[in-house]
């Protein structure tokens, strides 16, 4: 096999692994954002993200 084969194969392996890594992190982020948005839409929020009471109960 020629040297070109070994060079191209090395760059191809590096590119495939790094692109898989980038896409997996990106897709994971999108899926988690979607889940958080769905929870928020159903009214489930973190305590710190809930609106402060306006009826004076906290004072």
């Amino acid at each position: 096999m020629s040297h070109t084969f070994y060079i191209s194969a090395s760059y191809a392996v590096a590119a495939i692994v790094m692109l898989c890594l980038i896409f997996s992190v990106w897709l994971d982020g999108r899926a988690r954002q979607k889940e958080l948005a769905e929870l928020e839409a159903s009214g489930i929020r973190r305590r710190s993200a809930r609106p402060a009471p306006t009826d004076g109960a906290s004072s």
Partner: protein
Amino acid sequence: MPESLAITKISDLANPTRFLGLAARILPWMAGITAILFAIGLYLTFASEGDYQQGMTVRIMYVHVPAAWLSMMCYSVMAMSAIGTLVWRHPLADVSHKTAAPLGAAFTLIALATGSLWGRPMWGTWWVWDARLTSVFVLFLMYLGLIALNRAMDDPSRAARVSAVLILIGFVNIPIIKFSVDWWNTLHQPASVIRMGGPTIDKEFLWPLLIMALAFTLLFFTLHIAAMRNEIWRRRVSAQRRMAARMAGRTPAKEA
């Protein structure tokens, strides 16, 4: 005063909500700079001359060496995070070493595969069980073991403590990898860039190598911060689902 200010700034960053805010601000910049560095690095790589002995196969070095450096740097980042888990019991440190393991495994895989593809035309073999290659293979197995351990345990804080202990024990492999080429007679060449007395590599090859190393390093930190952000979101989702389940459990009890 400046010291206490620095400590306050670091502890601010250790707050997951502040970390998410910072990640949202810096991730687009980091991704952009990484892409630019890869464009410059790849241009220099393919514009550089061949080596007088190795010919054009020297170009494999520009992906093999940065990946190999990162495989060790990633483990060092994990070891520092493991100290954060065991000493300060900080959840962000748990998140850091958990999310770094798959990245480290990927860069180690690149180093092993490209090393094998470089070894075949230059050494006449795909693989030898010499000290450098074997210790890097052990590092790859350690990454896989840590990924499996984190996936096998449901409680993230318990998994983090067990992982942290294993990471710190496994850190002994990092100096073994670095100095294996000096301590034992290996087919792999000794260090030619990071060594006492400065680099022995010609500037023709050094510049593309340094730019590619910078691009790989920035890619690692970009992916690490993004993966940490994803893990924080994942933990928030499961915490909110638990809270929703508790609330759903209380409502019928009150009605009854």
